[in-house]
């Protein structure tokens, strides 16, 4: 045994490596990013591969291909990423999984860096598959190792669910000294993987048939622990995942206050399907049961419907715990009937402290891009930023900071890739000057399909691609394709060559670019403007780090650059001419 300091995400990644994973895939997204970046950092010497993919769907599908060939695969994403990968994920439960397939998904209650706080346990419930939920970094490591065995034993994809406070918390993790060998290449029988209706029906029945074995596994495994205290019939507790930590944090104070008859009966749930028999035993042991779970009140809901009104189930639905946001030890303390501890704020009064919201970094190209866009909007709306004549639909990335002060440039942000199709919808609804504004990595993730729709229907709208060369928000991972590919992509899906071009975005070009944006907005058709300049933070990181993977990524880009050069030079020239013309 060896002790390492690891983030929950890193512990999960190391668990996969020690379980003999052959391939790891993912798309960056807070709070999941470090799972794949950790695997990438270990892949060169580890004899396995780890890669970023274009989006969560392609990542999941790549993992399926690995599993079909008998090898183990890890696929990692954030909670909303699983929506993008939901199609292959749901169907994969009907495939006869061969090599272990583990889906690591990190939920973000409190939405520190997300658009919603959906609970991935619902996906496990929906797909009727197994899920493990670590409460700490050690469990993240160990549960990932056993998730691969469960996946191969029951031939199902297995989810390991993290939440922000496990994913982004560090502790010492005891790790095994020896690695399990990777599986040999051995193809699965194709019948288990051809989801034609006639076969799917058979496979679906087989999946239903596995449910009792899965329930049995969940009843017996060591992750769901039940301790009954027959002397206490008044109160019992169910915890799941990180909920256990907050209960444990308060237990000694609780015992001092209410512990005459000993500890309440306690069921901890670390795996799904939920252990129904254990839940039943617990409900018979006490009249009131407090459910402490991070995310949505899934266990609480199930208990309430399972048990009926004779028992009182309390938690997020009953209101003793907050319905939204992440839990903390104080929420649980209050739910247990304890008063909050006194703090320095009680004795020293501090007047309200101004907020310090995140903002664009110094020298950020987005700042120049949105300054230009705002100038154009003011012209188009005759003096106001957002008038009836314009709609600005934006997307997910650093640039979403431009939705607030001092820019206020955006009117909608919904999900990855929504900007272009929403702007198209707005144009179809009658908007005169409709803008879809999207970052480069988001464009590759799920913006291209929207651009195809726009090009084919020849709608009157404007697409602005913010090309900074990096997936900057999640730590400057390289984008899947280098900058000079965007022009080609736009042209190849049918965008007009005379209204598709690259402009350099920089402080001295704000006025010129604003004029060009305004002019293109007035053009009755589809315009694609690529505003380009590399993220200075990413460039600085590249200069300092230059690790092996960066170098190889760079090599790949150089190769692409060599291929693209002629077209690229032409478009550069056109852009230059355009900027010159606009100056006049």
């Amino acid at each position, binding site marked *: 045994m060896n002790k390492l300091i690891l983030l929950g995400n890193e512990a999960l990644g190391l668990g996969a490596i020690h379980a003999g994973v052959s391939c790891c895939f993912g798309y960056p997204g807070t709070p999941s990013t470090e799972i794949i970046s950790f695997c990438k950092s270990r892949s060169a010497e580890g004899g396995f591969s780890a890669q970023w993919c274009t989006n969560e769907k392609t990542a999941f599908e790549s993992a399926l291909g690995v599993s079909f060939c008998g090898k183990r695969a890890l696929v990692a994403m954030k909670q909303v990423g699983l929506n993008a990968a939901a199609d292959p994920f749901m169907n994969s439960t009907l495939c006869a999984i061969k090599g272990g397939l583990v889906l690591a998904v990190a939920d973000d209650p409190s939405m520190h860096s997300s658009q919603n706080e959906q609970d991935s346990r619902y996906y496990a419930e929906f797909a009727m598959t197994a899920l493990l939920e670590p409460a700490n970094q050690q469990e993240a490591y160990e549960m990932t190792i056993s998730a691969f065995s469960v996946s191969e034993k029951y031939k199902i994809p297995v989810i390991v669910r993290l939440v922000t406070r496990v994913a982004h*918390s560090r*502790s010492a993790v005891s790790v095994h000294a020896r690695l399990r060998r990777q599986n040999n290449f051995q193809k699965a029988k194709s019948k288990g993987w051809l989801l034609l209706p006639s076969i799917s029906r058979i496979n679906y029945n087989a999946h239903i048939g596995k449910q009792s074995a899965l329930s049995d596994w969940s009843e017996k495994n060591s992750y769901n622990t039940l301790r009954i205290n027959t002397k206490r019939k008044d109160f019992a507790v169910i915890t799941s995942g990180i909920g*256990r930590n907050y209960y444990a944090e308060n237990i000694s104070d609780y015992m001092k206050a209410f512990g005459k008859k000993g500890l309440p009966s306690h069921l901890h749930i670390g795996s799904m399907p939920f252990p129904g028999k254990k839940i039943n035993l617990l409900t018979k042991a006490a009249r009131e049961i407090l459910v402490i779970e991070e995310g949505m009140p899934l266990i609480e809901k199930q208990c309430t419907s399972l048990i009926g009104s004779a028992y009182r189930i309390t938690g997020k639905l009953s209101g003793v715990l907050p319905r939204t946001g992440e839990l903390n030890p104080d929420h649980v303390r209050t739910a247990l009937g304890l008063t*909050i501890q006194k703090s320095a704020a009680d004795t020293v009064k501090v*007047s309200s402290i101004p*907020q310090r919201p995140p*903002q664009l970094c110094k020298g950020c190209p987005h700042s120049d891009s949105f300054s230009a866009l705002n100038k154009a909007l003011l012209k188009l709306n005759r003096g106001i930023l957002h008038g009836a004549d314009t709609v600005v639909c934006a997307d997910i990335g650093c640039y979403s900071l431009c939705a607030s002060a001092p820019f206020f440039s955006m009117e909608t942000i919904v999900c990855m890739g929504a900007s272009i199709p929403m702007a198209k919808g707005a144009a179809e609804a009658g908007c005169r000057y409709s803008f879809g504004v999207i970052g480069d990595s988001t464009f590759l993730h799920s913006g291209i399909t929207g651009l195809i729709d726009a090009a084919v229907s020849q709608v009157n709208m404007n697409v602005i691609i913010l090309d900074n060369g990096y997936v900057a928000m999640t730590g400057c991972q390289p984008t899947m394709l280098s900058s000079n590919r965007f022009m080609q992509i736009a042209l190849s899906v049918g965008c007009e060559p005379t209204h598709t071009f690259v402009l350099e975005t920089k402080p001295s070009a704000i006025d010129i670019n604003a004029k060009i944006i305004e002019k293109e907005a007035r053009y009755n058709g589809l315009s694609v403007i690529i505003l380009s300049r590399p993220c200075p933070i990413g460039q600085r990181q590249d200069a300092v780090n230059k690790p092996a993977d960066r170098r190889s990524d760079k090599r790949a880009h150089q190769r692409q650059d060599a291929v693209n050069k002629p077209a690229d030079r032409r478009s550069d020239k056109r852009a230059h001419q355009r900027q010159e013309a606009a100056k006049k």
Partner: protein
Amino acid sequence: MTMQKQKKAQLTFDIVFAGVGGQGVLSIASIIARAALIEGLYFRQSEVHGMSQRGGVVHAHMRLSNLDIASDIIPHGGADMILSMEPLESLRYMKLLKPDGIIISGSEPVLNIPDYPDMHTVIRCIKKNSRACVIDTLQAAESAGNRKVNNMVLLGAALCALPIKKNTVERSIREVFAQKHHEMLIVNLRAFELGIALHGAA
């Protein structure tokens, strides 16, 4: 869970690290984490990544104990110390600090917001705590050779309150900078020493 182990005398020390994105708050947290591991202490270090790091508030929770630690988050009134790179930020987490908790803050403000309060009011407010200490980390960092190592000055200033030996923290710094230029290590160690002296003087 650790209910049986509670017989052993419990030593705990909870720290809230505060600052603004880019000030090196998380790096001093990770140096303490490494030192805790060397001394055989349990620790948990919780931080928030992503969008909030871009020039906004950055904070981390660090919990140290000789027994297993349950929660990654410090409860209300649970922190022994607030260690802040920036004066205003040191006041943001007062609800987490014990009534008799320690505040150590750098004196140099990060003025990237329009409504930054009057500096005297901020300092007066910090000093209302009986165990507060505001130190000029920037000046010490400059005399150590690099403005950027003011986080190490702060770490040095916190040392005497930490349940970790000086040698261990020093070893941790050496390990963290083992991969970097030797000159970097020297400057950081110098800043750490200056921090220790500063707190002694304050």
